[in-house]
């Protein structure tokens, strides 16, 4: 079986996952380990008047009860936000302090005020129940618009009116002027529902302090262990980087929620030093709902203007984003640089203005969740396009075609410069696969069964692999956005690739090995991918934003370039040949047109024996590379969703879902399809099922799967997936990233399809049976009223 780029190579990691042999953080056992349980606030907003730990401390098996005053007293720093976003008047963002254990005040239900360290998990939990905290309840606010309203409860002293920043992108005057000339304006008030990420493996950490070495080891569920180490060291003062090892072993999904460094990991490290024990914490599902960073939660008013031919003349967006009670690592970037910059979609828009205000609320922090900012932009643009088409009585595909960007590179009015794409082509592919021509017949057949059938589009673009570092830095990013790799050829000819990209479901152990097997024409079994351990891999920025292929793999390619150059020098020297005549093929390097060759292991041995190397060459065969892309990559796609709605109950069934994607070069179609399936499932989840709800007191009503609706297999159709590749010109493989497309593109396709089916505007996500039924009733009564 061929294992080259483009082959459907089976995932090598699945054997251990499917047989239960994966090694996750909770599987790690350290000698002398103790357990942490957190004392969490039951109130969304309260002053902490006192903590009485005496009953807990007196309990059998309780080792220590530690609080926030002790933590800050030991110099543990506040949790940071990694991207400084300024207001449009130039003032810096108003960021409130976030201590891993709250001291004077709690600001959301689940905010931790103390931690109990005990001999067993059960004892730690009993201990936590026995800690008595004296709370003085304060008024709460959970919705972003209400938080910004006059008289709202003040959550952080240094964010007056709860506003963190008032940011803008684009040209307000030009946009206003353009809208004033528009022949038609489509206006919407739209909410992007708040979601809980729900990775299958909950967060966990086990920290070990070695007092003799003054060294810490942290196993944790991280998408980016090196960034965790950097932040823990540079900002939280846990230990200097060379005294701190962070390992993210097998990680069972992240979706963004495991990018950030949370209070629990920091506390476990610190508590390990305080108690001189290994300290372990594994979130249960209730804690996960309460404390994992949520996603989305935008409120937006937007106006899109068209000329008489249906060409967009201007787009004006005013968004309020809920950031939660504290600013998490990327919370400032998600509703700004990952959102406002996407407002041009696939369309040639002469003028755009997007204003974003961010608000503190008494809810868990909101941060990047699969797609991060781009799903919010796409949902807005794509539902507006379809609504505009209905209002102007145009075919929605035709309206899109009239506005598609046709030539590249294309500079949008909102920073991004698209490099490649073929939007009409992918739309046409999707329309053919979805048999749009036959839709009317299917609709009529459904009507004969009393069902309402509808079809909706979403043609979207995303920006992946945030880059380049210097540009991000100038916009306020606190990290570089490159990736590093090391390619080691061993003396026996096997290859180890050390990558800073972390795999937590993506299948990197297979796809990264494929690019090596392809390049060197060696068996894929001879390639091993090493990641997730700061003691092994030199550095890395981790996995998020669909960056592992465009950025992480590119670093591997660069390192392979260097290895190949050295291999060729060695072989040319040993075989007394010209480097230009060497071909890499069949597990050997041969001199073209001769029978002279060196087998792969012979080359390895030659490099490490160093008995016969070219003059001045260092022994060994391992090379390192850092790759900093010159631009984002821009995957694009066209989704078509077809639904049937039961008008009696409002239940929606997705009967057909078609995607045509441009991901650039595809390394492994099976894995790409899996990413699309998962992304679309989460997108359908957002559109039909999922919503986090806090009541007005800040209590989480959707704190378990009894109330939070996760997509299940029977909620989803079989997917039809097509690809059309326009390779990215900005990285050596021409890849674009595929991890988020489904979650970004699916929600508007689903909502557009339901809207088409029921013929009623203003349907809110999630389109639960009740919401759809209500929309149908409202449309009926407005028709009756006319």
């Amino acid at each position: 079986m061929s294992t080259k780029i483009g082959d459907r190579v089976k995932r090598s990691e699945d054997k251990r996952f499917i047989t239960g042999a994966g090694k996750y953080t909770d599987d790690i056992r350290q000698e002398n380990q103790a357990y942490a349980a957190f004392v969490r606030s039951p109130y969304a907003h309260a002053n902490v008047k006192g903590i009485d730990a005496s009953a807990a401390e007196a309990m059998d098996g309780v080792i220590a009860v530690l609080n926030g005053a002790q933590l800050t007293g030991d110099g543990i720093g506040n949790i940071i936000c990694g991207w400084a976003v300024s207001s449009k008047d130039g003032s810096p963002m108003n960021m409130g302090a976030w201590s891993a254990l709250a001291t004077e005040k709690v600001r959301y239900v689940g905010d931790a005020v103390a931690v109990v360290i005990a001999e067993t998990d059960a004892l730690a939990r009993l201990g936590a129940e026995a800690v008595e905290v004296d709370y003085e309840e304060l008024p709460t606010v959970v919705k972003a618009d209400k938080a910004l309203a006059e008289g709202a409860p003040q959550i952080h002293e240094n964010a007056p009116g709860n506003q963190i920043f008032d940011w803008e992108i684009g040209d307000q005057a030009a946009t206003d002027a353009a809208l004033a000339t528009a022949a038609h304006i489509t206006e919407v008030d739209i909410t992007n529902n708040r979601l809980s990420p729900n990775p299958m493996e909950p967060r966990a950490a086990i920290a070990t302090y070695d007092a003799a070495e003054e060294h810490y080891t942290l196993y944790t569920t991280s998408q980016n262990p090196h960034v965790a180490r950097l932040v823990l060291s540079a900002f939280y003062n846990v230990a200097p980087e060379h005294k701190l090892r962070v390992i993210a072993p097998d990680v069972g999904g992240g979706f963004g929620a495991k990018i950030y460094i949370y209070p629990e990991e920091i506390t476990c490290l610190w508590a390990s030093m305080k108690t001189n024990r290994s300290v372990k914490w594994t979130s249960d599902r209730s804690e996960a709902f309460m404390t994992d960073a949520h996603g989305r939660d935008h409120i937006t008013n937007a106006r899109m203007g068209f000329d008489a031919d249906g060409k967009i003349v201007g787009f004006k967006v005013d968004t309020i984003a809920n950031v939660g009670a504290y600013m998490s690592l990327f919370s400032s970037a998600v509703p700004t640089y990952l959102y406002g910059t996407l407002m041009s979609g696939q369309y040639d828009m002469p003028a755009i203005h997007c204003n974003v205000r961010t608000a503190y609320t008494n809810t868990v922090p909101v941060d990047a969740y699969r797609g991060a900012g781009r799903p919010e932009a796409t949902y807005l643009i794509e539902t507006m396009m379809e609504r505009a088409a209905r209002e102007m009585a145009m075919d929605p595909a035709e309206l899109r075609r009239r506005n598609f960007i046709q030539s590249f590179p294309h500079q949008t009015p909102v920073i991004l410069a698209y490099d490649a794409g073929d939007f009409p082509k992918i739309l046409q592919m999707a329309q053919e696969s979805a048999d749009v021509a036959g839709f009317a017949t299917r609709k009529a057949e459904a009507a004969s069964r009393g069902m309402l059938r509808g079809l909706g589009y979403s043609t979207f673009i995303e920006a992946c692999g945030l880059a380049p570092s210097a540009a991000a830095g100038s916009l306020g990013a606190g990290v570089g956005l490159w990736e590093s790799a090391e390619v080691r050829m061993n003396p026996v000819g096997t290859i180890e690739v050390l990558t800073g990209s972390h795999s937590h479901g993506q299948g990197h152990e297979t796809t990264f090995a494929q690019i090596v097997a392809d390049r060197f024409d060696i068996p894929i079994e001879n390639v091993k991918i090493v990641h997730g351990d700061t003691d092994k891999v030199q550095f890395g920025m981790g996995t998020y934003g669909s960056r592992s292929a465009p950025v992480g793999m590119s670093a591997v390619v660069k390192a392979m370039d260097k290895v190949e150059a050295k291999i060729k020098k060695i072989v040319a020297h040993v075989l007394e040949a010209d480097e230009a005549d060497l071909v890499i093929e069949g597990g050997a390097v041969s001199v073209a047109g001769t029978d002279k060759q060196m087998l792969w292991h012979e080359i390895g041995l030659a490099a490490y024996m160093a008995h016969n190397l070219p003059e001045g060459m260092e022994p060994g065969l391992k090379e390192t590379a850092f790759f900093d892309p010159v631009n984002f990559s821009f995957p694009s796609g066209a989704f078509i969703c077809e639904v049937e709605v039961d008008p009696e109950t409002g239940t929606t069934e997705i009967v057909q879902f078609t995607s045509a994607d441009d991901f650039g070069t595809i390394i492994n179609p099976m894995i790409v399809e899996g990413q699309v399936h998962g992304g679309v499932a989460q997108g359908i989840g957002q559109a039909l099922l999922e919503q986090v709800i806090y009541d007005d007191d800040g209590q989480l009503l959707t704190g378990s799967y009894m109330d939070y609706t996760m997509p299940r297999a029977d909620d989803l159709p079989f997917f039809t997936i097509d690809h059309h590749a326009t390779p990215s010109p900005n990285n050596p493989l021409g890849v674009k990233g595929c991890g988020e497309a489904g979650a970004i593109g699916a929600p508007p396709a689903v909502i557009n399809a339901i809207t088409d089916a029921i013929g009623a505007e203003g349907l809110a996500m999630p389109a639960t049976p009740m919401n759809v039924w209500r929309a149908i009733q409202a449309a009926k009564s407005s028709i009756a009223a006319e």
Partner: protein
Amino acid sequence: MYSTKYHNPASIDAATAALSSGEEAKVLAGGQTLLPTMKQHLAEPSDLVDIRGIAGMADISANGATLTIGAAATHASVADNADVQSLCPALAGLAAHIGDPAVRHMGTIGGSMANNDPAADYPAAALAMNATIVTNSREIAADDFFDGLFATNLEDGEIITAIRFETGAKCGYAKFPNPASRYAMVGVFVAQTGGGVRVAVTGAGDDGVFRHAGLEAALSADWSEGAVAGVDISPGGLLSDFHGDSAYRANLIGVMAKRAVAAS
């Protein structure tokens, strides 16, 4: 979990003794409700008395049109039982759609009845057929058994041993699942038995399972889907939450009643 003492009695007498031995002893059946509650530290029984080992507790038998289902019979065993399937396919179908396979292989009919969750399925069947709840000390008609949300008139220490159904000519059940939990958001059981036409609604009432007089009258006059359409279903007294407000639930009662009749 808090510490608790586990008993595994082989007879009703031993179970009764064990139940009176502890401060706060509780019957344990499938544990699908009780154990999660204990894990969340919302219940703290001193003793758990597992009734699944008691001889005959999980038996299912038929005598003419009478079905007797042991309290410890799991939902899966009810769904798969040939007598249930032939005498009352609606009941077998109801059991087959409770929760997921794991829940169906652990959860029991007795546990479901004793728990009287307002969104549980069995109470609708029991009330529509006026089943008899047999306990270690007496027999209780379903009409007298349910007593509001999560409440029944079981005495402390009383153990349900079986549920007896007089199956009728026509029975049908239609359930609209809550999208998240997949318990009944509205479940309607329609039955035409010796006791006349009865319609029980679960999932919707703010006081638990209830009979719907309007639907009963309409279906007594004319057992047809069309008869349901004319019935006025008031949202008064119905549950309201973010999954379904009372108006939506009222609509669903009508739709599910129609579908239950169609399935009968």
